[in-house]
């Protein structure tokens, strides 16, 4: 078996890891084995953070307007999606800090940094459609980030994968709402 051949090599690697771990403990989670381009990862996460915050704001507005229109099914979906986007924003911000970056919450540049747009929306149909489009943009931009990260930063990749799964659910919910007479009343 190959394991017998690899065992000595593996233990040598562990020894090297033990030595490297002592060299810069102040770097925290950024160890010698972190092979991703940290600047690039931070830039991607910055875009993802802005995207989640803009989606949160859009959903929030749409929740209130749908409530005013007594479109309760859509209003409830918008509120739930808004809360989930805000949780994603927090998770991404935590990861940015772990990677030694600073999460940027500056409101005046949020929309410019976001992958998806803020569309105010005038009718329920338009609001559902715009949220769906934004989710679809987020889905594909997260797939791109996942491919970029590959094996270089599995923790960030896992985070984005988990967020992607929720965004796919959102898109599915909205597509259902678009078809349903209940959604658009």
């Amino acid at each position, binding site marked *: 078996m190959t394991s017998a051949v690899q065992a000595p090599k593996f233990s040598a690697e562990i020894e090297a890891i033990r030595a490297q771990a002592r060299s810069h403990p102040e770097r925290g989670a950024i160890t010698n084995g972190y092979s991703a381009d940290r600047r690039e990862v931070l830039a991607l996460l910055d875009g993802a953070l802005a995207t989640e915050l803009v989606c949160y704001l859009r959903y929030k507005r749409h929740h209130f307007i749908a409530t005013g229109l007594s479109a309760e099914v859509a209003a409830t979906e918008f509120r739930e999606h808004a809360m989930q986007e805000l949780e994603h924003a927090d998770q991404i911000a935590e990861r940015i800090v772990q990677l030694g970056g600073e999460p940027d*919450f*500056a*409101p*005046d540049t949020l929309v410019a940094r976001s992958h998806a747009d803020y569309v*105010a929306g005038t*009718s329920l149909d338009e609001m559902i459609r715009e949220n769906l489009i934004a989710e679809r943009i987020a889905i594909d931009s997260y797939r791109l980030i996942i491919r970029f990260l590959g094996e270089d930063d599995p923790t960030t990749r896992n985070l984005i994968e988990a967020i992607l799964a929720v965004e796919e659910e959102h898109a599915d919910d909205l597509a259902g709402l678009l078809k349903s007479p209940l959604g658009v009343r």
Partner: protein
Amino acid sequence: MRSLAPSAASGGDPILAELNRALGQEIACYLRHKRQYFAAKDLGAGSVAQTFLEHAQQDFGQAQLLAARIVTLGGAPDFALSELADAHGIAMRLTA
């Protein structure tokens, strides 16, 4: 289907315009406190971070109340921060 034209958001109503301005300020404060929370946490200043988080949650609750009131008065709450920054010149540039 009913629609709400953007012009109906405040419709020139000074109360709605004021409430929307206040809403924008609360959201901007929420974001600033959130940023400060993460910065303080990273510095290991746990109790300071906790204070910022509480402030952020209070701003969040206040934004919620303002938006609900705007809807009750027949307006549309404005969550577009960039437009708000342009319109009212609110100093939103954040400093750590």
